[in-house]
C-alpha cells in the first residue's frame, strides 16, 4: 500500500502552518527560530513528495531540497549569531521586549 501524494502535502501544510503560527506568536526568540525551521522543513517534504509521486516525478525536487536544507542552516546560524549579540547587550531573548524601535 502506498501513501497518496495528498497526505504528504497535508502533513507539509500542517507543518507550515504550525511553523508560521509559532514564528508569529512565540515569546522566546529561540522558539521563533525553530518555528522558521519547521516552515522550511514543510517545503522539503513538499519537494521530496513531488519528486517521488508528482505528475512529473524526477530527481530535481530532491536536489532542490538539499539546497534548501543548506540555506536554512546558514540562515539560522546567522539568526542565532545575531540573537547572541542581542543577548549580550540586552540580557533577554524575549521577543516582546525587543521594542526599542517603535517610534
Amino acid at each position: 500500500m502506498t501513501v497518496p501524494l495528498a497526505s504528504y502535502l497535508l502533513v507539509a501544510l500542517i507543518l507550515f502552518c504550525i511553523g508560521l503560527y509559532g514564528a508569529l506568536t512565540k515569546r522566546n526568540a529561540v522558539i521563533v527560530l525553530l518555528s522558521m525551521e519547521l516552515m522550511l522543513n514543510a517545503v522539503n517534504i513538499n519537494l521530496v513528495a513531488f519528486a517521488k509521486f508528482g505528475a512529473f516525478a524526477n530527481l530535481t525536487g530532491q536536489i532542490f531540497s538539499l539546497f534548501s536544507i543548506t540555506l536554512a542552516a546558514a540562515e539560522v546560524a546567522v539568526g542565532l549569531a545575531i540573537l547572541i549579540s542581542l543577548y549580550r547587550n540586552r540580557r533577554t531573548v524575549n521577543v516582546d521586549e525587543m521594542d526599542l524601535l517603535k517610534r
Partner: protein
Amino acid sequence: MESRWGPLAQYDWSVMAPEFTILIVATLISVIDLLMPNHSNRRPLAWLGIVGSLLAGWFVLQNTGHGVVEILNGSYRVDAFGNVFKLIFLAGTIFTLLMSINYLNRGGVKEEEKVVDHGEFYYLTLTALLGSMIMSSSADAITLFVGLELLSISSYILVGTRKKHLLSNESAFKYVVSGSIASATVLYGISFLYGLTGTTNLFEMADRLGQAYMAGNALLIYIAFFLTFVGLSFKISSVPYHMWAPDVYQGAPTPITAFLSVVSKAAGFALIIRFFITAFRSVVDYNAANGPHSVLISELLLVVGILAAISMIVGNTLALRQTNIKRMMAYSSIAQAGYILVPFATLTSLIFEQTVFYLIAYLLMNMGAFAIIMIVTGDRETEDIRSFAGLYHRAPFLAIAMTFFLLSLAGIPISAGFFGKFYIFMSSLVMGNYWLAGIMIATSVVSYYYYFGIIRQMYMRPGETEAPLRVPAGIAVIVLIAFIGTVGVGIVPDSVLNFIHANFPLMDLIEAAGQ
C-alpha cells in the same frame, strides 16, 4: 576535443566574467582582511571593492548586445534584462562603498555605535551584490533562490554590524526573522510550481504550467503565485510584507539602509519580473466566456495592482507622522515600491523600460538623499528630522541638492522622479486602470507634505548651530553625481528612455537562448 571536464568545458564561461570578478574581489578582500594587522585602516579594501565593481561593470558592458546566452542548462543566463539590472546594482554598490568609507572612518562616534570589523563590512556588501546579480540573470528556480538567499543572509549581517548597538541588534534580529519567514513562503510557493511542472527551469515551467492550468489545477497555480509573490514582496518592501522596513532601516548603518532601499529592492524587482513573466506567461484560460485570455494579465496582476495601491497608501500616509528621518525614508520607500509595481501590474509593452527608468531615477535620488542624511545625522548625532534645521545656512550646496532629491522623490516636474512617475502613470492610463492612476496621483500629493517638511526645516527653521558643515570628498562626489544625474535625467528623459530602448532589447527576457 574530449576533456575530462566533460560538458563543463564547452560552456562559454566568459559570459560569467562580472560575477567571477565580484567573487574574486570579495574573496581577496576577506583574505587580505585576515592577514592585515588588527589596527590598520581597512580603507584600501573598500577601494579594491570599488575597482572590482567598476571592472565588473565593464564586463557587463562587454556582454551587452550579444543576444541571449545561456549556460549550465539555463541556471545562468545573459540577456539585456539581466545586464541592465546588473549595471544598476553595481552603481548602487559603488555608491554604498563610497558612503561606507566615510561612515566607518568618521570621528567622534560613541563606542557602542562603532562598526567593529571594517573588512567584513566591505566584503559582505560585495557578496550581497553577487547575490543580486545572480538573482537578475538566471532562469532556474534553484539558482534564483540561492541568489536571493545570498543577498538576504549578507544583508542580515550587514544590518547587525554595529555589534554593541542595541537598535542595530534588534533590527538585525527582526530582519532575520521576517526574512526567513518570507523565504520559506517563497520556497513553499515554488515547491507547488515544481510539483505541477516537474522542473525548476523557468522556460520548461512556462510550457507545463499552461497544461497544468487546463488540466484543472487552477487553484494550485493561484496559491503558488500568491505564496511566491507575498514572499518576494519582502525584498521590495511592498504590502503585504512591508512591516520590517521601518525598523530595519532605522537600526541599520546608514550606507546599508541606502543599499537595502536601492540595490536589494532593485534585485527584488528583477526577480519578480523575470520569474512571473517567464513562468506564468503561457497560463491561458481557453474556456472563458469571452474568449481565451491570459490568466496572468486578467486575474493575477489585478491583485498585484491592488497591493501596489495599498503600498502607496500605507507608505505615504504612515510617513506623515514619522519624526525619525530614516523611518520616514523607509515609509517613503514602501510607497516607491508601490509605484514601481505599477508597470508590472498593468503590463504594457513598455513595462521593462518604465521599470528600469524609474529604478535608475530612484537609484540616483535615493543614494543622493541618503548620503546627505548620513552626513547631517552623523553631525547632529540625532536622526530626528529637526537635525536638518538651518542646513541651508550651514551648507548651501547640500541643502539645494537635498531639496532637489526630495522634489524628485515627490515627483515634482523637471526631475528624474517626475518622468519616472509620469511614464508609470501613462502606462496605467493606457491600460484603462483609472483607479490605479488616481490613487497614484492622490498619494503623491499626500507625499508632498512630508517631503516638504524636510525642506521647511532646511530653509526656514533656525538650527542649533550655524557652524559650516564639513563635507568629506567621497560624499561630495556621490551628491554631485546623483545631483547631475537627477537633473540630467529630468531634462532629457526621452534620450535616456531611447538609450535604454536601443541598447537593451529588454523583451529578450522571454526569448530562448541563441537567437
